């Protein structure tokens, strides 16, 4: 034995060393214990050099990079451009992913809301035949899909399953020439057949006597035994009487050719045609803002255009003169007089102070003795204009209006050579009589 060991001494030592390491390794694996002490020693012994090495590296390479920085600017620029292009592509990709996620969320909401039992599917491919409008979805017989089942989206109908495979199904879109859908209008509940084979979707078999207006919604009628009743189909673009049948063009609410996620109706439940148009599930709408009050409302009221002011002024004059705009037999009002009320202030804010002065100094007594009256114009028609109808000034009571014959009635916008004396804004402070107006030189 001793001779054997001495003869194979090298091999024996090798076996001992290897087996010892193997046992140590097996012990670590068996106990799942990391020999932390050895590693701590090694790392503690080695890592202090890391700072030195890193300092050498940083200083050396940093100096070289600073020194030769201009040499590789072009390369860096090219690399940055390349990175920028790549990031742009990624941005587009993630935007598409986000849109897909939003659509999937809408599908989930619709799936939870509709009483029909549905299963979501993703469009994975188109048909190889160019003329046939069909797509493949990633759900098949293993998901419970059967031939003839309807395929919808929250926006509208998509098609029906025409072939079922274990993992995929083929869906014939409603835009296929051979596909027809039974539809029903929302308001008049007029039944028809949707045909999108010609490229434009038309609702056929509707009499001319039936009332279908543009903008009206059409829903599935359930008569085709494919789509449950009550799924939105689209809105009427045009509805015109035709030869025997009404010519109705329809705009599909869904986009059968461009959908990515669909719902296959496993068990359809007929629903009533909703009285309101289907809500858009993809966008939310805030409630109307509250009514403005206080200073905001006053500020909004001041935001009037010049046309609004002129219209308001004429309304005031019309009321003041007892004129009914558009009425027959009404007297022609004098638009040259200034109306009473706030419209005058708004229209001529600068002239308000001078008018008040005139009133105070001119006929203070008359102001005090003549109470205002707003009902007078209707019971007391305005005098006809004429130079002789107003020989003397009268007190400016409610019964006495500004003289209509103090001057010629000028057309709107005609130049005036002399300003018409204004009337006080408050009705109680109206002057007793308007000063006589000189004859117009024209």
């Amino acid at each position: 034995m001793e001779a054997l060991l001495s003869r194979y001494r090298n091999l024996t030592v090798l076996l001992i060393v290897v087996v010892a390491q193997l046992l140590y390794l097996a012990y670590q694996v068996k106990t799942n214990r990391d020999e932390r002490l050895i590693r701590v020693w090694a790392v503690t012994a080695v890592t202090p050099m890391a700072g030195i090495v890193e300092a050498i590296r940083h200083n050396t390479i940093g100096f070289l990079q600073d020194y030769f920085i201009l040499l590789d600017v072009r390369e860096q620029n090219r690399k940055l451009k390349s990175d920028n292009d790549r990031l742009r592509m990624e941005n587009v990709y993630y935007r598409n992913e986000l849109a897909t996620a939003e659509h999937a969320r809408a599908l989930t909401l619709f799936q939870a809301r509709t009483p029909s039992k549905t299963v979501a599917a993703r469009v994975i491919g188109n048909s190889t035949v160019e003329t046939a409008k069909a797509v493949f979805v990633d759900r098949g017989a293993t998901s419970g899909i059967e031939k003839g089942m309807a395929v919808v989206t929250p926006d509208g109908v998509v098609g029906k399953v025409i072939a079922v495979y274990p993992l995929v199904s083929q869906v014939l879109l409603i835009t296929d020439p051979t596909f027809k859908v039974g539809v029903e209008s929302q308001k008049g509940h007029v039944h028809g057949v949707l045909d999108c084979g010609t490229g434009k979707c038309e609702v056929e078999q509707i009499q001319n006597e039936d009332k279908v207006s543009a903008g009206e919604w059409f829903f599935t009628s359930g008569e085709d035994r494919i789509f449950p009743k009550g799924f939105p189909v689209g809105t009427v673009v045009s509805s015109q009487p035709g030869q025997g049948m009404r010519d109705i063009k329809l705009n599909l609410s869904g986009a059968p050719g461009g959908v990515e996620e669909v719902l296959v109706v496993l068990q359809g439940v007929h629903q009533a045609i909703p009285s309101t148009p289907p809500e858009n599930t993809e966008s939310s709408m805030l409630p109307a803002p509250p009514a403005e009050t206080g200073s905001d409302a006053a500020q909004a009221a001041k935001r009037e255009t010049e046309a609004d002011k002129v219209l308001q002024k004429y309304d005031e004059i019309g009321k003041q003169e007892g004129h009914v705009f558009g009425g027959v037999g009404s007297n022609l009002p004098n638009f040259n007089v200034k109306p009473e009320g706030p419209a005058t202030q708004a229209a001529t804010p600068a002239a308000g102070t001078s008018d008040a002065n005139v009133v105070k100094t001119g006929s203070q007594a008359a102001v005090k003795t003549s109470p205002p009256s707003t009902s007078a114009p209707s019971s007391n028609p305005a005098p006809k204009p004429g130079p002789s109808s107003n020989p003397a000034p009268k007190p400016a009571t409610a019964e006495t209006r500004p003289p209509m014959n103090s001057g010629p009635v000028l057309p709107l916008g005609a130049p005036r050579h002399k300003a018409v004396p204004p009337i006080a804004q408050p009705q109680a402070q109206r002057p007793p009589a308007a000063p006589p107006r000189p004859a117009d030189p024209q």
Partner: protein
Amino acid sequence: MNETSDQILQRPLRESWFSRFQVAALAALTIVAVIGKFYLPRLIPNTEWLELPLLLTVYFGLMRHGPIASLLFGAFVGLAEDSLSPANLPIGMYGITKTLVGYFSASVSMRFNVENSFVRLVLSFFFFFFHAFFYWVMRRALLGQIVPFDPQETFVHGALNAVVALPLFAVLDRMRLSGSV
């Protein structure tokens, strides 16, 4: 046999190398080789393929002519390398591999003239490939870790290490000669 064959198979007659080489220098070289494997890629990028501890083990085995000392040296270098390896790898993987490398390199040096550059080149390449392959086998067999093994990449790295081994061994030869004076 021709002259080249004689030169390759001739066993060099020289004194014990280890006795001439300072122990301190050997320890320093070992530490530098082990630590250099972890810091060199920081200093010089794309040098992860350089296996200085392995080359040092091979050189020690080729020059020592003693299998026991070589395998112990290989075990020491390997365990030192293991202590700095990731924590998910138990200590002993590199130890076993380099133990075998040290033993086999010492065994080869007893039959071939390892002073020849071509022999050194071939042996360096061979031991690098053996080291990488055996390490991969151990990870799969002992640890059950499915790690990829790219023979083409290993071949290229082996060739690069063999190219580096020639000047490195020459420098170590000069150190040995200076120590022998």
